[in-house]
Structure formats: C-alpha cells, structure tokens
C-alpha cells in the first residue's frame, strides 16, 4: 500500500481534515482511524438539542456514509492507534496490524477530567454520543434531582436542559464564579442570574467530597439529593500517544504556526493541539468547533503545498435556555471591558480591550455584534472603547471602511 495520510481521531477535526484534503485536491490515500464505533458526528448538540430530545441521533452525523466512499476516505471504526513508529513511519493499531503513513495528523482530542472524589463512578460524563444517549435516558428517569458538578459550558448546558424538563437542578462550582476560565466576571454574574431565574440552584465556592448513588456531599458536609449526577469539570488533552512517540507535549501536543509537531511529518489539530495564537499573543489550546474546522483546513493546505500559518479568529457559542451566547476572539489578559446594549433586556455585548486594542467580544443575543466582531478581529479594524460603548456608532460601517 502506498503510504498516504493517516488521521488519528474521528472527531470533527479529524473528519474535517479528511474532507479538506480532498477539497484541496490531495489524491493519495486518506485513512481516518476512529476509536468509537460511530462514524464522525457533531458533539455540540449532545449537551443541547440532542439531550433535550429536540434532535435525533441520526442527525448528528457529520457526513452520510456514501460520502466516505465517494471521496475515498477509508473509515476505520472501533479501532485505535496504540503506537507511532516514527522511524518506520508506521502506526500500530489495537486490533493488530500496522499502517504506513507519509504524513500523520493527530486529531486525538481530549477526555473528560475525572472527578477526584470517592464515589466518582456514580457520576455521568458527557463527551461521546453513547454517553449522551445514557444521560438522556437517566435524565428522563430522574425524579428527585439533578446535580451538575462544574459550572462550565457543558455543565451549564446540561443544567439548562434539565431545568427545561422541570426537574430540580443544582449546579455546584468550586470557583467563585461560573465559566471562570472563559468569560469575564460580568458574564459569570449574568449567567448565575439566568440560571437562578429559571429555578436552578447555583452554589459557588463549593467543593464536592463524595458522590453517593442518591446524593452529593459538599465539603461543608451539606448533602444534596440527586438521582442523576453529571460531572463537567473540564478535559485533559490526549497527549500520551504523542509523548510516547517522543514528540514535544505539555498541556496538549506542541505544534508550530503550521500545526506541525516536533516531527515535520506529524501534525496535531483540534482540542489536543497547543498552538501559537495571534489572538492571545501566546500559545493556547482551544476546544471548539471553529478551532477543529479551521485547523483541519490549515493542515490540509500545508500538506497540499499551500502552507499558510493558522490565524483564524476564534469563535464559540453556547445555548442556555433562551440565551444564545457567542464569543469572538480571546478575552484573556484584557485590561478594560466595555458594555454595549442592555443587560436587563438580555441583549448586550462586552468588548474587551488591552491597552486600547480590541481583543474579544462576548455577545448575549446580539448576533450582529458577534459577526461584526469576527470581521473586525480578522481585519484588525481599529475600534476605540468609546465607539464600542456608543450604540449610535454603526460597527458594520467601521468594518466596511
């Protein structure tokens, strides 16, 4: 077999890399090795419409099976790469056998951070379709209460869906505010109000010491009854395969601006890739659809000889109740936050600046601000904090100008 491209990981980054290679005209073999038994599917709906019963399982798949045949993408399901032999340019598979590669793309993703307390096996996690199917079933059966450990995006989306079914919901967050890693205090406070207004209990600064089959025990000794406990306390990048192959790893697999690892024939993309970012001024690892898709395209360009550094504007979204929250750019390190719109009316954006330079925009039910922000950040449009705060200033015109 002529060695072609082997993609390790059948999440969205892996699938999009295979698709982008064909779109970019790559003619060699493309093999996509998926650890799960399912063809590649979307993860975002799992904690939203799928869990809420508004979307069926068959609509989460990213492509029809005929697509893989038509575009000669060899889909290997239910198998995993156990070892990379860089010298021989081979990957070994758990089912036995080895596969040669000319270039290797690691799209190995991340896994849920396990809850480090006794009884953690009583909690459910949510990352895969199978886990979502189980959680949906358990949610339907829950009578006494749903406890969500971790006030991040996944936890809060699950909490919103659970409240939508009318069950008692308690969110337990160890930090002083919600989504602390990703959003500013203003947004954290806003979302506490949103969840509490919907009847969810939100406990901040609260650690969990034990999960029992019928309750969660907090560090102060308080017991919260629960027949469904969901843990969403972040993820760990899957770096082991790369580390064992001698590639440089840290909080993710280290890649350069072309998404190459320390081996020029091996790339890493998506949730597992720790990459230099124009938007943070530093290195980051991002867990998002945008990052998966755009890095996939970037690596396909590199492989087909059209190399350009990764520089797409990060964006992200979450849906909680009737709130559509959209983020553009990376707000970490900002020294000024400016409000545009009305928090009371639940239609506002927060513009983040560092030394007067626009870093990021978070938007609540302000779709126009979000799209305009993406364009501004991509184009490097000059915007002052005063303009951002002034609703009389038409932001779209600034981009066009």
């Amino acid at each position, binding site marked *: 077999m002529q060695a072609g491209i082997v993609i390790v990981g059948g999440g969205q980054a892996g699938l999009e890399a295979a698709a982008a290679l064909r779109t970019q005209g790559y003619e060699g073999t493309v093999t996509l090795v998926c650890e799960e038994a399912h063809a590649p599917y979307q993860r975002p*709906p799992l904690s939203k419409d799928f869990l809420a019963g508004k979307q069926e399982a068959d609509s989460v*798949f990213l492509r*029809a099976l*005929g697509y893989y045949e038509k575009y000669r993408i060899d889909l290997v399901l239910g198998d995993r790469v156990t070892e990379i032999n860089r010298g021989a340019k081979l990957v070994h598979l758990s089912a036995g056998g080895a596969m040669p590669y000319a270039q290797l793309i690691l799209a190995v993703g991340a896994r849920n951070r396990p809850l480090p307390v006794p009884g953690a096996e009583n909690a459910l996690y949510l990352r895969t379709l199978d886990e979502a199917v189980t959680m949906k079933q358990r949610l339907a059966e829950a009578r006494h209460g749903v406890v969500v450990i971790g006030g991040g995006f996944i936890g809060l989306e699950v909490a919103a869906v659970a409240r939508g079914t009318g069950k008692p919901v308690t969110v337990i967050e160890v930090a002083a505010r919600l989504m602390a890693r990703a959003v500013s205090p203003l947004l954290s406070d806003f979302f506490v109000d949103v969840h509490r207004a919907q009847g969810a209990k939100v406990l901040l600064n609260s650690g969990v010491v034990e999960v029992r089959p019928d309750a969660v025990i907090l560090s102060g000794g308080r017991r919260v009854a629960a027949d469904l406990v969901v843990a969403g306390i972040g993820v760990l990048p899957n770096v082991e395969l790369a580390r064992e192959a001698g590639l440089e790893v840290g909080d993710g697999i280290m890649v350069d601006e072309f998404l190459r690892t320390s081996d020029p024939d091996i790339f890493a993309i998506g949730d597992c890739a720790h990459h230099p970012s124009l938007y943070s001024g530093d290195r980051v690892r991002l867990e998002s659809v945008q990052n998966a898709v755009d890095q996939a395209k970037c690596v396909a360009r590199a492989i087909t000889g059209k190399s350009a550094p990764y520089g797409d504007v990060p964006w992200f*979204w979450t849906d909680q109740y009737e709130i559509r929250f*959209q983020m553009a750019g990376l707000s970490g390190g900002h020294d000024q936050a400016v409000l545009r719109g009305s928090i009371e009316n639940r239609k506002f954006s927060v513009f983040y600046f560092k030394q007067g330079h626009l870093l990021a925009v978070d938007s609540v039910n302000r*779709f*126009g601000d979000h799209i305009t922000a993406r*364009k501004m950040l991509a184009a490097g449009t000059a915007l002052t904090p005063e303009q951002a705060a002034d609703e009389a200033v038409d932001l779209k015109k600034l981009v066009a100008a």
Partner: protein
Amino acid sequence: MPKVTYISHTGETTTIDVPVGTTVMENAVKNGIDGIVAECGGACMCATCHVYVDPAFLDRLDPIGEEQEEMLGATAAERKPNSRLSCQILMKPQFAGLIVRMPERQT
C-alpha cells in the same frame, strides 16, 4: 412526503424527500449532497449551508430571522435577495417541491 430539489453550481440535480419538521440542510448532509457544508451542524454560526432559493418559493418561506440575517452577511459566495441558510429552512407541507441552488463555494 414533500420533496426538495438541490442543484449544484455545475447543474447536478438531486431530488430527495425532506420530512416536515426537519431542515433543508440536515437532509442534504444525510443524503450526501455536496455543496452544503454546515460546519457548525445547524447552529446558525458558520454560514456554510448557504443556498439560493428558487424565486417561485420565496414568498412561502418564513421571514429571515435576525440571527440568519446577520449570518447571511458572512457567506463566502455573494449574498443575493434569495439567499438563505438552509439550516434555517424548516420544512413545511407548503414548501413541497422546493428548489434550492447551491453556490460555488461555502468557505
């Protein structure tokens, strides 16, 4: 069941059943119709499921929502008066026979 016809930019025509209550985008993806990408999976975040709706059907469609209006400003191909995001076209009985044309590029 109502049918929808998808026409690629090169003129390739595919007609499929689209159940009421599902979107024009998701049926295209499920049936392997090229030309509709839907990177965000129908969340109205990416503008890669852009289609041009046959003018004969335009009046029957629901009005463009604020969110779709903004995303249509970010399509890769030219936005025209009959541009829509196919993830936002939720099939109804009166859309039977709908014809959509796909742009040359989505990204």
